């Protein structure tokens, strides 16, 4: 099933788009595995995902650590640490 990937802030800018819908390979276990796989898609992806310590993620709108299991999500968002308020 295709998954909606969403990018925000400078992650969005580096990749050059706010999101994409992709069919994911079946062997991705964690969010970090997904990021490894996405990083190979383009130079922009590689640049956006170069520094893991500066990345956060939400799976189906719930914040998770990058080592969290990916499961079978509908939507995964990848973004920098948040700065609201």
């Amino acid at each position: 099933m295709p998954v909606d990937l969403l990018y925000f802030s400078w992650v969005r800018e580096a990749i050059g788009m706010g999101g994409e819908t992709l069919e994911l390979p079946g062997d991705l276990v964690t969010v970090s595995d997904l990021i490894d796989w996405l990083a190979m898609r383009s130079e922009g992806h590689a640049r956006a995902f170069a520094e893991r310590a500066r990345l956060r993620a939400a799976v189906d709108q719930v914040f998770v650590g990058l080592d969290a299991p990916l499961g079978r999500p509908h939507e995964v968002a990848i973004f920098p640490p948040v700065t609201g308020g």
Partner: protein
Amino acid sequence: MIRVLVRHEPIDPAAEFAALQASGVGGIATFLGVVRADDGVTTLELEHYPGGTEAALRRLVGEAVARWGLAAAAIVHRVGLMGPGDLVVFVGTAAAHRAAALESCAYLIDRLKTDAPFWKRETRGAEARWVEARETDSTAAARWQDS
């Protein structure tokens, strides 16, 4: 009353306060976040995660209502382009007594800073940059875990 709203339009703090006051309880606490006017910022742009932001804010408000037994709680957050002096966020809580109102209000703004998907981009003249998350914000949010 629980009110969670993300909007482009300016925040009306009087209207938000009146909605909390209508709960009829004895204590109301509010926090208003303002675009700072003291360090050369000309514009502030706020990006967010539509859907994900509202879900995160509803979770936080739900936790606060359960933990402090609130009669009412509101988070209204502005997004888009703002200038110095504009209101960025209104947080308000209403409870029977002041301690619950004050503590839950501090809890909501502390947790919002680390757990709600907003990103600030500041412009100073011709130079724009994404605001970096601050360690002090993580520390402020973490203090609510133990108590």
